[in-house]
């Protein structure tokens, strides 16, 4: 099995298992990993990314729960059939949850609605961080 083109970033603050889930899902959605393609074993991927076996197991477990991959005992881990619809639905649901988390946190911190809305627009328009500081 070839190595997966996954790069982990500590600076992002996103847990490693989550980065593995997101990037693997991206590879599947973009067609770089097609249905039936075999993924590296847990041990192989942990070795490639220099993370623990537990981290990769958790990522694979999440991907399996999202029906993006299937674990075939004794054979390996494969991209599931009909992954496009499953991955899109899963990703949209996760995005909604993540947006809700951001809004709830903002409100708990006392940030007003107008400021949150402005922040969203700035990010959606892809303005540089330096632009919004001024």
């Amino acid at each position, binding site marked *: 099995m070839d190595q997966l083109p996954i790069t982990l970033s500590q600076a992002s603050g996103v847990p490693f298992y989550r980065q593995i889930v*997101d990037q693997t899902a991206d590879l599947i959605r973009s067609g770089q990993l097609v249905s039936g393609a075999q993924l590296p074993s847990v041990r192989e991927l942990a070795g490639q990314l220099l993370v623990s076996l537990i981290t990769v197991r958790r990522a694979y477990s999440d991907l399996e729960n999202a029906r993006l991959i299937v674990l075939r005992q004794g054979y390996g881990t494969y991209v599931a059939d009909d992954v496009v619809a499953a991955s899109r639905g899963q*990703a*949209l649901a996760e*995005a909604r949850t993540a947006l809700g988390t951001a809004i*709830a946190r903002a409100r708990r911190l006392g*940030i007003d609605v107008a400021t*949150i809305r402005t*922040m969203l627009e700035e990010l*959606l328009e892809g303005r540089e961080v330096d632009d919004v500081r001024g």
Partner: protein
Amino acid sequence: MSAAEANQVAATAPAESPALWSVRVLLAAALARALRAGADRATIRRVFEELLLEETDQEGDAGV
């Protein structure tokens, strides 16, 4: 915004309050995820407004 751009936002040192910055990072990650999933900007704005309404409703119910 791409996932790489979201990471860039997260990795850049904040020049605003830590509270605002933490929210910006969460929002950036959520937007990157939504865009990767194929959601367009209009859909994201609609979902955002729905969630904002739900949140303010809950605050109202809680007497905030």
